[in-house]
């Protein structure tokens, strides 16, 4: 789906007209009543559209790959270690980092709603919030991984974390082979959003164009 404005307008003027009009009316009413500051809405949107996203998490992962002492701190107590890199706050007040190994693959879900570590990954993608993922991640994670084109060895332990409370989980993916001596910046380019949810793996050096 494209992200350009033309597309948005097409969308609005077709099946979503009613919702679009209602949201517009609601914003006007709430502004007139003095409950919301439209400029605050703009800042909220800009924050999650432009500033907070999976690049944050990728920096954390790359640092953990490059710096064994940081990796140890991150796995011991995720929230302050992530705070060192400058990320904290809403929907990331209590972050636990879980590490993938050749023996064990971690995957994160919220079967009850859409809990997701916003400060490091941004807002969750539609599939993460959707019924197909929320229903099957806990019962058939290998089937879900197949939907993402990922197949793991039959003897790899699959560990699924259902975020039913305010603990937020971030997967530390395995560092790809052939990246010895890489800078954190270069390593971060290998870290995908899905690899930090557990529905994907980090890119290999040969995947970089």
């Amino acid at each position, binding site marked *: *789906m494209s992200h350009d404005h033309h597309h*948005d307008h097409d969308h609005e003027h077709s099946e979503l007209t009613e919702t679009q009009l209602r*949201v517009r009316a609601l914003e006007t009413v709430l502004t007139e009543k003095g409950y919301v500051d439209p400029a605050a809405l703009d800042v909220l949107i800009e924050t999650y559209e432009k500033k907070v996203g999976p690049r944050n998490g990728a920096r954390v992962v790359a640092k953990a790959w490059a710096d064994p002492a940081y990796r140890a701190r991150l796995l011991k107590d995720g929230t302050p270690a992530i705070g060192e890199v400058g990320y904290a706050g809403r929907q990331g007040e209590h972050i636990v980092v879980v590490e993938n190994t050749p023996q064990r693959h971690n995957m994160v879900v919220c079967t009850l709603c859409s809990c997701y570590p916003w400060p490091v990954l941004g807002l969750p*993608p539609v599939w993460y919030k959707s019924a197909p993922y929320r*229903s099957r991640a806990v019962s058939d994670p290998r089937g879900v991984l197949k939907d993402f084109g990922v197949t793991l060895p039959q003897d790899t332990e699959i560990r699924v974390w259902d975020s*039913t409370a305010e603990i937020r989980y971030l997967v530390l993916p395995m560092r790809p082979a052939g990246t010895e001596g890489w800078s954190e910046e270069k390593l971060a380019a290998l870290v995908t959003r899905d690899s930090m949810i557990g529905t994907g793996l980090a890119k290999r050096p040969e995947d970089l164009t």
Partner: protein
Amino acid sequence: MNGGQDLGGMDGFGPVVPEPNEPPFHAAWERRAFALTLAMAMPGGWNLDMSRFARENRPPHDYLSMSYYQIWLAGLDVLMKERGLVAEDEIAAGHSLHPPKPVKRILSAADVAQTLHRGGPTERETNTQAAFKAGDTVRAKSMHPLGHTRLPRYVRGHVGTIEAVRGCHVFPDSNAAGLGENPQWLYTVRFDGRDLWGADGDPTLTVSVDAWEPYLEKA
């Protein structure tokens, strides 16, 4: 409540369909609905657990046929109307028709960054002792409250192992009902995939939930 939100283990929804290069929002109204929902919590005075309940407390066929931000909007609608902050005739007219309710604070543009950075930590000081420790065997209770709860159906009645003690946290079942934070010890409880899904389940699978002490009993 045993509602449409409690999806773990259901069948028939089809494959997960990832969207390449997915944008954070798919329509202009989603941006505004998202921001309105975040901003209204301050003047509205409701908490996160009340928001979650307002979203899930609807017929399952409605919940499952609405888009994510449509559910957010519907939840916001309930929360505002419960408190008399807005009326349907105003939304229909597109203008305020009644005097506003006095509110303590609103979110200003200048406060957004600090408010987001502060977040809403849920861990609380306590002088109680945790009933369980890592390694203990526990059973997720069979319980079916009509209000908000965070114990998914697919683990109820099953035996698991305490993997970690996460501290004492605001208890959603109380907080959503306006009965106060009532902090309770929170645990990560791990279940064997075959205990949950039967002999045909993936033998390499373990699943955990985060469960407050009132959800658990000794096994």
